[in-house]
């Protein structure tokens, strides 16, 4: 007995492979590979040399423009921005959360669309807009983080609200409580640990973005980094990269530890 494969069994993999290859041939056609500079090798060598000889003198100078001060400033931007954003996100989350069963969801859908727009709006552009408003410096960075994070935190908060157990709320209503009672006694206690955990998670992301906002003049370690790269001052680049790596690692560790303790 011999059995035949069906057409699809036989060719499915090939068809997908073909689609894949076509897409990638198209993609590679758009990227000029000749774009590599002649000096790339040399630059890489200098960078690597710099990376093994970091400019340790920059770590602390005491003038407030050194690595440690600017890393702290970066953390401050991320922290202030995230806390402000967490508070601002709460009303948006309740706007976007779909809490009623059935019916249309005009309210929550418009809220979700709004949050998607905020999330997609480039943080860099937001930073530049805030720089116009309050001038260059870390404050503009705080504002950019605060407002941009609403897009993601609002969405995550809304999902947390949607997922909470509805039974305590029903019990309160059944016992004659008002919607306000539900909010105070059922909803808020249920979502607070979740909100805190999500905020910590967002803080980890904010630390990363705060360390690059300086590229456009919104404070933190980004500005000296881009300056050092521009002037090809590799030992300086190296020490800043190391500083960022250490900072992000430590923050991820602490935040991860706290989040584990919350659940």
């Amino acid at each position, binding site marked *: 007995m011999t059995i035949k494969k069906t057409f699809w069994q036989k060719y499915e993999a090939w068809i997908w492979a073909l689609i894949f290859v076509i*897409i*990638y041939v*198209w*993609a*590679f*056609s*758009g*990227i*000029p*590979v000749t*774009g*590599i*500079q002649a000096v*790339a090798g040399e*630059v*890489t060598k200098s*960078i690597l040399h710099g990376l093994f000889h970091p400019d340790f003198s920059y770590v602390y100078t005491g003038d407030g423009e050194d690595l440690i001060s600017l890393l*702290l*400033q970066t953390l*401050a*931007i991320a*922290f*202030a921005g995230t*806390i402000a954003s967490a508070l601002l996100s709460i009303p948006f989350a309740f706007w976007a959360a779909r809490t009623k069963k059935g019916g249309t969801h005009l309210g929550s859908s418009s809220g979700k669309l709004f949050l*998607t*727009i905020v999330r*997609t*709006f*480039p*943080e*860099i*552009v937001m930073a*530049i*807009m*805030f720089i*116009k*408003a*309050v*001038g260059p*410096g*870390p*404050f503009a*960075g*705080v*504002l950019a983080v605060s407002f941009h994070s609403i897009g993601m935190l609002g969405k995550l908060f809304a999902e947390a609200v949607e997922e909470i157990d509805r039974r305590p709320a029903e019990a309160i209503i059944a016992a004659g409580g008002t919607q306000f009672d539900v909010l105070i006694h059922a909803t808020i206690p249920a979502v607070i640990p979740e909100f805190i955990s999500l905020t910590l998670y967002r803080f980890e992301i904010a630390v*990363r*973005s705060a*360390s*690059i906002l300086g*590229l*456009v003049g919104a404070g933190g370690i980004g500005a000296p*980094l*881009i300056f050092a*790269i521009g002037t090809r001052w590799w030992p300086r*680049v190296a020490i800043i*990269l190391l500083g*960022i*790596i250490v900072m*992000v*690692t430590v923050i991820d560790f602490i935040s991860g530890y706290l989040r584990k303790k919350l659940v």
Partner: protein
Amino acid sequence: MNTIPKKSFAQKWHIKALVWTAIVLALFIASCAMTGVDVGAFLTGFNQFMQIFYEMLKPDWSYVPFTIKPIIQTIQMALIGTLVGSIIAVPFAVLAARNIVTNTVIRGTIRFILNLVRTLPDLMLAAVFVAVVGIGPMAGVLTLAIFSFGMISKLFYEAIETIDMGPIEALTAAGATKTQVVWFAVLPQVYNHFLSYFLYTFEINVRASTILGYLGAGGIGELLQRSLGQFRYDRTAIVVIGTFIVVVVVDTLSNQLRERLQ
């Protein structure tokens, strides 16, 4: 007789919560002081902000044709970056998986490298790569490759750690080499996860690649930088709208494909 248990002092006053709130508040105030937060300045400057916003509300539609090519390039960069990154990720993920590699030194080293890579923000990588390979999409592709590599390899080794170990045993017992075990018993089990992560990373890369151009790393971000530099916020608006459309379309397509993979 029943007695109502007395709340301890700490429970009664929610001491722990209060302490934490106080710590967070103190840190918040310190952060605000350090970053020169000034609500007054924000309020007075707010009309400046709104000024830009109003200009953005009147997009310069004639700019649309100029955005098509960079948008396409953005997608191409994201595609290639995701591909390169995820191919490199496969061996690293296998070597980082606890149930495949029992040697803690190898696994520890690999995980250390992966953690290191994930700490680097994408724009920072872009700045470095622009310095190395020059302005252009190549820098963007390299950035996205490294970025996706860090992300996929972590997702992927976590997936590998959840697989059924039975087939591994069966292949080993049949006299397979380590490579054959991975190829025939491990990879088929995580193949779908891999495709799903690939698509997910592609979505993230599309978002990321829309701003890389701000630093000269190719794609639509270049127009962002140009229009902002020329104070042509009406054009910035077009770029932002274009970005938005691309992100939404890619997310939708990719989500649909991922659902089919389930």
